[in-house]
């Protein structure tokens, strides 16, 4: 579950990239195009829609081009905040049905509220799953979810607890938004 080195990741808006590993070439494929975007500086953001009529915000982008709140058709693509707060979560101890999920077990997913006013359903990472708490501040990370049948890494977005900079105890920060954090 090593975090992807963002520097070697795309400038391709979530497109497939080829990376070199010790065993040769390996491709990394986002779970779905257009869920996130990365700037040249490595700043990664989820991509959503904002309705110019009513102000509602959506993640992911509204494919229909319609605001499902007011049915307005003037939506703009926006970059969402990369930090938010856990509103709920669960830890799953058995493999989901259907064979769709190829990631590790146990795993945790739940909801993160972003400051601009939208909730995102997400996987959690970057800590012992038993340490997760409602109200915990978390930040966005792009990580490997699993490998597909061809051995390519499937990447997805996850949120991980924000750690206080320079705190060697690895304590997670659950207070207000801390701009000092990385």
């Amino acid at each position, binding site marked *: 579950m090593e975090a992807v080195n963002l520097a070697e990741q795309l400038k391709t808006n979530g497109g497939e990239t080829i990376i070199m590993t010790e065993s040769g070439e390996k491709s990394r494929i986002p779970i779905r195009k257009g869920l996130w975007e990365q700037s040249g500086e490595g700043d990664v953001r989820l991509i959503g829609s904002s309705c110019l009529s009513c102000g509602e915000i959506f993640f992911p982008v509204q494919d229909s081009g319609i605001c499902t709140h007011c049915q307005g058709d003037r939506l703009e693509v926006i970059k969402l905040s990369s930090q938010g707060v856990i509103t709920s979560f669960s830890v799953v101890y058995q493999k989901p049905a259907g064979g769709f999920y190829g990631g590790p077990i146990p795993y945790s997913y739940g909801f993160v509220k972003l400051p601009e006013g*939208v909730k995102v359903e997400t996987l959690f990472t970057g800590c012992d799953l038993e340490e997760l708490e409602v109200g915990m501040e978390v930040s966005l990370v792009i990580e490997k979810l699993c490998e597909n049948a061809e051995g390519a890494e499937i990447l997805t977005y996850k949120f991980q607890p924000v750690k206080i900079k320079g705190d060697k105890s690895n304590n997670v920060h659950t207070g207000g938004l801390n701009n000092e954090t990385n």
Partner: protein
Amino acid sequence: MKPINQMREVVVAGIGTTRFNVYEDKQWFHLGGEAILNILKDAGMQWPDIQAAFCASVYQGTGSGHQAIKEVGLTGIPVVNIENACSSGGSAFRLAYQSVAAEIYDIVLVLGMEKMPRGPIPSTAFRPFELQMGFNVQPANYANETVEYMKESGATVEDFSLVSVKNRKNGALNPNARFQKPVTLEEVMASRMVAKPMRLLHCCPLADGATGFILCSRDKLKSASKAVKVASSVLSSGVYGDAFYPSALVDSVKFPAKEGMTEMSARMAYEQAGIGPEDIDVAQVYDTMAPSELWDIEKMGLCGKGEAPRLLREGKFNINGQIPVNTDGGLMSRGHPLGATACAQIYEVVLQLRGEAGPRQVEGAQVGLCHASGAGPNSSVTILKK
């Protein structure tokens, strides 16, 4: 638009079911056929009396209702298949009710049935990337809602464990339930963790089964003493801004729903029936996961917000309590054949209103409510009156 409660009166003329169990050697249509014969016998009617059939199932595929009807015989009547996830049975019942109320038919069949896939349910109510990210674990989706409910109401894991204990105790009195053995609080709290904080005995078991009814106008009844009136039958399929995690539906932060889907379905059902929650003598409330019974009791208006855990401890929802809930053991004991579940709830309320519920009879029950909700999202509510 004419309100349905100003149309023709509709009654439940007959009921029938199979036992809910795991059947290795039977398909859904075998179970459906068995239920139909039981329904006809109970109603005292003949197969050619039936003018239309509304058949609910979720996983059986194309023409699933026809397969069950064929077990008894094709007679030229229209057979319609209804898939509305866990509210399928309630949705089929509603269409059947409307067709008799509107005087399109006099006598119709409602049939809910399912042979469940084994293991956890592979829901299709998700986008491909959500399935790949593992968001389709229903105990975990309910767990997320549970975490929110615990925060709002102060409910504890022990509180909703007591739902399992109550319902399994009731199920021990139901010969049609899959599980007929009570469980203790200790057994629930010690059962395997499935999706934190949900343990195995907080989750309803799967089962195969079929349950159904004949609905008709009062003048077509063969046995007037058995008749139970349909006071209302409603369906809400989601409102903007309301969360329903089992369908990956996230609530809106900016525009939260003023009235949630479940509350809306309850309000519509009471309005249509011309009564209020205080008139309900017995209720079947959707306990697919133990904690959901608590918040759905509240959303049905049977008590105030956040009060259900305390009232459960005080015994208010026991068979001999003020508002008995899930008297037949609920999904927790009966098991959950998706297409049949909402019908099984109605079956139990009809038994209760007829005074035929045996050792689990609620004394003097006159009005009963059934609520089922599920992926889509959907919330169906049916109110029956003696």
